[in-house]
């Protein structure tokens, strides 16, 4: 009897110890990634949030004056901030919805089994893999006055020519076009993969019920690509909302603030006005808006 209890006890002990050691090994494996992230990104983030409540100059970052919510109050009455916020929201809404629609269209075209479709599929991601700076160079070259191909074409049609990134009404649409150019293939390939994983039998069954192509798209395709669509939309809303380099490298926020977005405004506040606290408070507003969007969108998707 005694030996039985003992052996049972020792078995428990063994299970417990192996559970303990497994837990420790689990922690050990995840620790390198966690430490790198915590130190290099976690700490600066907390520090950035903290800075938003101070008046700090880049020229003397040690000297910090606590100002409470004053930075945020200043933002509320800052016309450039409001303009940048509006541009950011507009850019994100237009770029992401156009990308999604055009990506869906490309996915439907790539899904067709025409000869050579494979070549199109493999060529499609070229714009997505190239560096942003190279994309910007391509676009800036194309709209150069005098020798850029777009202007050569416009000129031959007798239309006005100019450096279009410097044209107030045109610079903003051009930036949307760059977003579309870069990201549509990624949407298309992801949506295509989702479409191809839909069992063919469902289409056959719908066909037997004499559902037309549009009905089949509405009732079979759309519901089953909704999860991937959600991922793509959340991913690109956050990407576009916080994106810095596409705008900064192509127009720098100009002409006359026409393409100023929150990310470029943060950068200017910090590095041109040396107002670190002010810049950080704009960053905090961006973070809050993005979190709010993600939570609401995911909740809405769950309700559906």
């Amino acid at each position: 009897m005694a030996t039985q209890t003992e052996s049972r006890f020792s078995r428990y002990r063994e299970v417990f110890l192996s559970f303990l050691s497994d837990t420790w090994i689990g922690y050990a494996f995840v620790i390198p990634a966690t430490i790198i992230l915590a130190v290099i990104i976690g700490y600066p983030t907390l520090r950035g949030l903290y800075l938003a409540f101070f008046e700090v100059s880049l020229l003397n970052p040690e000297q910090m004056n606590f100002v409470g919510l004053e930075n945020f109050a200043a933002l509320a009455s800052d016309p450039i901030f409001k303009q940048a916020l509006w541009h950011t929201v507009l850019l994100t809404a237009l770029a992401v919805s156009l990308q999604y629609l055009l990506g869906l269209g490309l996915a439907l075209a790539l899904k067709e089994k025409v000869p050579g479709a494979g070549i199109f599929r493999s060529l499609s991601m070229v714009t997505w893999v190239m560096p942003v700076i190279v994309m910007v160079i391509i676009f800036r070259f194309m709209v150069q006055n005098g020798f850029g191909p777009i202007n050569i074409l416009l000129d031959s049609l007798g239309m006005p020519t100019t450096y279009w990134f410097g044209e107030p009404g045109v610079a903003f649409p051009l930036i949307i076009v760059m977003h579309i150019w870069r990201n549509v293939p990624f949407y298309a390939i992801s949506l295509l993969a989702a479409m191809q994983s839909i069992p063919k039998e469902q289409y056959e069954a719908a066909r037997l019920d004499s559902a037309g192509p549009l009905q089949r798209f509405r009732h079979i395709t759309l519901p089953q690509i909704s999860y991937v669509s959600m991922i793509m939309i959340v991913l690109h809303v956050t990407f576009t909302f916080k994106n810095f380099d596409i705008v900064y490298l192509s127009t720098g926020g100009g002409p006359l603030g026409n393409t100023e977005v929150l990310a470029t405004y943060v950068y200017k506040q910090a590095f041109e006005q040396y107002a670190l606290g002010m810049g950080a408070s704009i960053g905090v507003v961006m973070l809050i808006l993005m979190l709010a969007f993600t939570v609401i969108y995911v909740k809405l998707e769950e309700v559906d």
Partner: protein
Amino acid sequence: MATNTDPESRNIAQRIDAWLDDDMSPRRALVVYLVLGLYFAFLLLPVVYMVLVSFTSQEFLFSSELLPSLGDLTLYNYEAVLSRGDFRTYFVNSMIVATSTTLLVLTVGILAGYSMSRFEYPGRGALLYAFLSTQMLPLVLILIPFYLLMNSLNLVDSLFGIIIAHAVIGIPLGTWLLKGYIDDIPESLDEAAKMDGCSHLSILRRVIVPLAMPGIAVSGFYTFILSWNDYLLVSMLSQTAATRTLPFGLQLFQAQNTVAWNLLIAAAVITMAPVILLFAVAQRWVVEGLASGGMKGN
């Protein structure tokens, strides 16, 4: 069905069926080609045109001609760009940084992905969310504290500092993708290896890594282009020519008011060539993997 023994007629019926199934009448195929043609004209013509222009003389480039004649073609731009020692340094730096970042992200990502996939411990789910939420942070918010931190760690103006910075951006998504792929490997294989007396590290090396290769290829590719293409972090951390990488180094050909377009375009082609080549090689896995990666998180 069984009564239909005439192979000839059945064959025709099947062909008609298949044809209906495909729904690919010539008219429809034409429309599909037209749509694809429009898309790819928009996507690829600018790239093709840039590559073409990079092989032409400066006189042609600044002329108002749209297409070069044979006489305009030259390799001069590439010779001029590649003969610059600083540009060659940037290229080597880019290679070192992108390769090391990829290796670093894959190493810690495989460990973390394995841990999150196979071990139960308190805080596991929260950790994964914490990893992913870093993707939402606006980089501009953390730029200054990040710079001050790197400065105090002596990581400013060093390739190692740039590698660490890029790794931080790549680790969250890399870990998440790898966890998805490792989740797909049946746990019975781990158990079998454990029975044979394998330690966790050797299970990782002999079972997990070989079977997760497609996922490793995807995460590796994603990290490589992320590092290769980065401009913002390098512009922050690199202060001398010795640590510059290609995207930031392209400013070599843009002075305050004058841009040496012929050289800049050739240099831009050289800058994008490695990632495009890599993509061409890895395309099969990457396209499928990136697309299915999104669905795996379900």
